[in-house]
């Protein structure tokens, strides 16, 4: 008896009842669900920004000195790269909605390319920092040994590598889901009539961009006014 099929009923604005055949075309529901997921992301990064702000109030000068040592040219280039990738992702969605599937796919490939450029620049930056002895686990960032940096700078760089690392991980996830999106488009499961997956992945990419909008000034720019910085 417990396995008896009970159809779900939806009621329209006029009070008429309809048997639900499936929720796959529930565009607004899918969008709202994805926004709820994104709020959890915001809470995660929000907590990290709060911790960063607290440490900044405790070790103000150390944070400014550490910030001034980061490479603003590479960080700034990555900011512009992400900005253009958000544009290509948005234009891809626009093309998909208006029936230009080939154009949409081209724009997704452009976004993937820009994401790889971002990761490449990040890799160059991290490698340079490693070569200067600044990386998680190296002596300079371990308190209590002769070559340690001041404690505030250890906190700054610890948070820097953690947050830019998690952000980079989101970029990698983004590339993965964009490749999956291309596969779904090729198989006809995402089309100008059913593009919610494309819409949500574009939202995800904008969130990744949005987080960087705060990561960049917080780490690279707060100490930019100090003399002796790299750039």
């Amino acid at each position, binding site marked *: 008896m417990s396995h008896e099929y009970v159809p779900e009923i939806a009621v329209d604005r006029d009070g008429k009842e309809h048997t639900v055949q499936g929720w796959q075309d529930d565009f607004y529901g899918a969008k709202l669900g994805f926004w709820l997921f994104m709020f959890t992301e915001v809470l995660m990064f929000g907590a990290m920004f*709060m911790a960063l702000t607290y440490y900044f109030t405790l070790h103000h000068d150390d944070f400014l000195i550490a910030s001034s040592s980061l490479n603003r040219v590479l960080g700034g280039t990555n900011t512009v790269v992400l900005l253009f990738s958000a544009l290509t992702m948005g234009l891809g969605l626009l093309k998909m909605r208006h029936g230009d599937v080939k154009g949409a796919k081209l724009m997704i490939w452009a976004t993937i390319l820009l994401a790889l450029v971002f990761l490449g620049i990040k890799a160059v930056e991290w490698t340079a920092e490693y070569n200067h002895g600044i990386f998680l686990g190296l002596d300079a960032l371990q*308190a209590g040994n002769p070559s340690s940096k001041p404690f505030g700078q250890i906190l700054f760089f610890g948070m820097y590598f953690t947050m830019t690392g998690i952000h980079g991980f989101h970029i990698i996830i983004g590339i993965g889901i964009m490749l999956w999106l291309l596969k779904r488009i090729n198989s006809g499961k995402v089309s100008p009539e059913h593009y919610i997956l494309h819409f949500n992945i574009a939202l995800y990419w904008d969130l990744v961009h949005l987080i960087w909008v705060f990561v960049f000034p917080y780490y690279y720019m707060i100490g930019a006014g100090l003399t002796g910085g790299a750039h």
Partner: protein
Amino acid sequence: MSTEITKSYKEEQAGYFKVLAGLLLLTALTFIQPTMFMESATFAVQMLIGTVKAWLILMYYMHLKGEKLIIMFTYFSLFIVLVFFVIVIGFDVVNFQYGELSHITSGDAAAAASETHGAAHAEPAHH
């Protein structure tokens, strides 16, 4: 009908490029601000510019303009963050009874660590 769709497409595309121009302008402002103006309030100005950029991205790239329910959720989330992360935890942090014992919060301990180990390591990471 097709003309109408084409017009709408072009209008939306123009919208994307206008937002891009705004974001590029604000990014340029981010770069020049620390050495050009309001140097004593760099952190506040940088966060303000970031907030304006975030607003543009949310409203136009993330299509929140006109989405009353999601905007309401966003404000509610911000309210929750404000209450719990800032007010409640902030109050707790101000009255932290183990402040002197903690390596992070104790100014003396941190200063001592800096003096002992870090004096020669304030040089830039890149040259």
